Structure formats: structure tokens, C-alpha cells
């Protein structure tokens, strides 16, 4: 039979696999993670709220970015407490910031001052690096933390000249408490946790 004249097709195909899951682009993974975090993990809607679920279904067709926009704008801007806790009626995250130990799970963490904002790209001067970077300045994608109309659930509205504690992965600053307004006491706990 023909299938015995050539190697097992599955073996032939395994040798020709065009994608290696261990070599995926970290930037691509980070972009997906950021989108999921923005659109799903910060979903402020109770799972049981049927009418809102239908709203989300319709919005999903229009793109996940629009989903985040409408949900966040329609509910106002959730705020983040000084310690990173989420205020009443605001969003929660699947992987929320739960204190200084949380930053160990992120690839970088630093104390920085915003020097420029271009769309979602935010440049920081690094005042003190806690982990993952030795640069004196760094530019990051801060999805949902820039601009006036769209502010991320669980993230501050970043402004030039202001100082923040920032943690994230790859080229992305995370919301959900990982990026927050600078507080000396919290900064000290980040420094301790990172060492």
C-alpha cells in the first residue's frame, strides 16, 4: 500500500512544523496578553449579568478594543487606591497586583517619571530600577493608561512630569495595580521585594 512506501505522514509533517511554540515572538505574546488583560481580565461586568453579556457579544464583533472602550467609558473611570487596591464599583483583574511580592512575577519594575507620551507609547526616566532593567530611560506601551477618554480599569492616567511605580513584561507596562502613582512607602516595599 502506498502509505507504507513513504514515512508516516504524521512524522513527515512533524518535521515540517512551521511554528515552534518555544520560539514564539515575545512581543506578540505580550501584545496578546495586554489585549486580554485590557479586554477580559479587567472586565468589570458580573458574569451573571445577562443583558450586559449580550452587549459584550455584540461588541466583540466590533473588535476587542471597542469592547474595552465602551465598557470603561460607560461605567466611568475606575480608580486605584494608593496601595493598589481596587475601589468600589471598579474593575478587578485575573492577575491583580496584590502587594509588593507581585512585582517579582513581572519582568521589570522601576520608579520612573514620565517624559513623553505618544499615543500609547510612554517614555520614562528611570529614577530607580527594581528589577529587569538597567536603562536610564525606557519607552513602554501603556495600553489604556494614556489619553483622556480611555483610561484603563485599574491603571492611572499617565501624565508627563508625574512619577510612577511601573511594572510589566516585555514592552508593556501593566495596569491592574502594577503601574501606580509614586508613593515612597510603596516604593520602599518594591525595592525590598525585588532584592
Amino acid at each position, binding site marked *: *500500500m*502506498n*502509505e*507504507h*512506501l*513513504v514515512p*508516516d*505522514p*504524521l*512524522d*513527515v*509533517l*512533524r*518535521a*515540517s*512544523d*512551521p*511554528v*515552534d*511554540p*518555544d*520560539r*514564539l*515572538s515575545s512581543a*506578540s*505574546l505580550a*501584545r*496578546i*496578553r495586554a*489585549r*486580554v488583560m485590557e*479586554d*477580559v*481580565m479587567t*472586565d468589570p461586568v458580573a*458574569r451573571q449579568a445577562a443583558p450586559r*453579556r449580550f452587549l*459584550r*457579544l455584540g461588541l*466583540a464583533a466590533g473588535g*476587542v478594543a471597542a*469592547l474595552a472602550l465602551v465598557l470603561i467609558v460607560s461605567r466611568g473611570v475606575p480608580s486605584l487606591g494608593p496601595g493598589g487596591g481596587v475601589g468600589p464599583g471598579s474593575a*478587578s*483583574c*485575573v*492577575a491583580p497586583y496584590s502587594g509588593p511580592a507581585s512585582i517579582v512575577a513581572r519582568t521589570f519594575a522601576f520608579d520612573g517619571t514620565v517624559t513623553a507620551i505618544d499615543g500609547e507609547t510612554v517614555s520614562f526616566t528611570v529614577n530607580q530600577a527594581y528589577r529587569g532593567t538597567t536603562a536610564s530611560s525606557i519607552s513602554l506601551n501603556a495600553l489604556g493608561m494614556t489619553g483622556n477618554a480611555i483610561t484603563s480599569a485599574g491603571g492611572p492616567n499617565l501624565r508627563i512630569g508625574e512619577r510612577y511605580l511601573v511594572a510589566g513584561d516585555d514592552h508593556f507596562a501593566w495596569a491592574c495595580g502594577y503601574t501606580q502613582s509614586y508613593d515612597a512607602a510603596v516604593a520602599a516595599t518594591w525595592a525590598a521585594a525585588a532584592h
Partner: protein
Amino acid sequence: MDDRQRFHAAFEAHQRRVLAYVLRRVASAPDAEDAAADTWVVAWRRVDRLPDSDALPWLLAIARRVIANQRRGRERQSRLTIRLQRESRPPLGPDSENPALDTLESLPADDRELLRLLAWDGLTHVEAGAVLGISPNAVAIRLHRARKRFAEAFAKGSGSSRTSGGVEDQKPGRRLFGAKRP
């Protein structure tokens, strides 16, 4: 463990496999990112059905539908737009003439998907059946036929004549990233 924790655990465990799955099946890296992100959005919407263990087949079944919807959306676009997208894709490297991949592309869609699930996504017959919505017995029957068709086409070298039909016939965005190196 609440819904968010279950979702987060699944995301951390399977995000690479989900992205790899879509990369093998869509025409471009941006499309793959869209499909992967949309897969997780849908998974979250249906988190009450997220299996507590072995969630990958369930996730890939969602990804499969997301990709199908993505393709249908593209098919609704004008022929000119599709042609421009095709032309804008990065040129395939020398390995675009890989006989195994060309043979795979020449097979019927059902055969192609089953072989990819087993060979590339590393699923068992039971898991592949869960993705395709068929029984393990049906998987075994289809696999027997798919193997035979692949072997015949591979032996004849029919894969060397690449098809260039609609979106369904487009090659996946291979070697765009996550590419295997020699």
C-alpha cells in the same frame, strides 16, 4: 478557585499553544494575534464551560471557530482588497517549496486539519476529536483516510503544484515568527 483564577490558570498554561495553533492556520502574524486574542475573549465569555483539566482542546475548538469567522469576514471583503492583502504578505522563503507542506495544502480541508492537530498541535485522538466535534472512532477512520491520501499525494509529488484559490487556500503565516530553525 473562582472563574477569574481558572481563566488565568488556563491562559498561563496554554497561551503559547493557542498562538502556535492560529499561527499555523492564518495568513499573517497580525491576523494570528487577533485570532488568539479573540479566542481568549470568547473563552472568558464562556468561562463557565472552561474544563478544569485539559482545557487545550476546548480552547483550540474556540480558536478554530474564531479563525473560520475571520476567514468569512475576509471573504466578504472585495476581491481587490483580498488581492492586495495577498500581495502585501511577506514573501515566503525557500522553504515555501517544502513538499510536505505543499502536499498538506493539496488535501481536503478536513484531512488537513486533522493531520495538523495530530502532527503539529500534538493532540491525541481523543483531544483532536474534541476540537473537531467528532468521536475518537471517527478520528481514527478519518486519520486512516487522510494518511492514505497524504501518502499518495506525497509519493506523486502533487503538492509541488500549489493551489492558489480563495482565502481557505492561503498558506498559513509560516516563518513569520516562532519559526523553527534548522
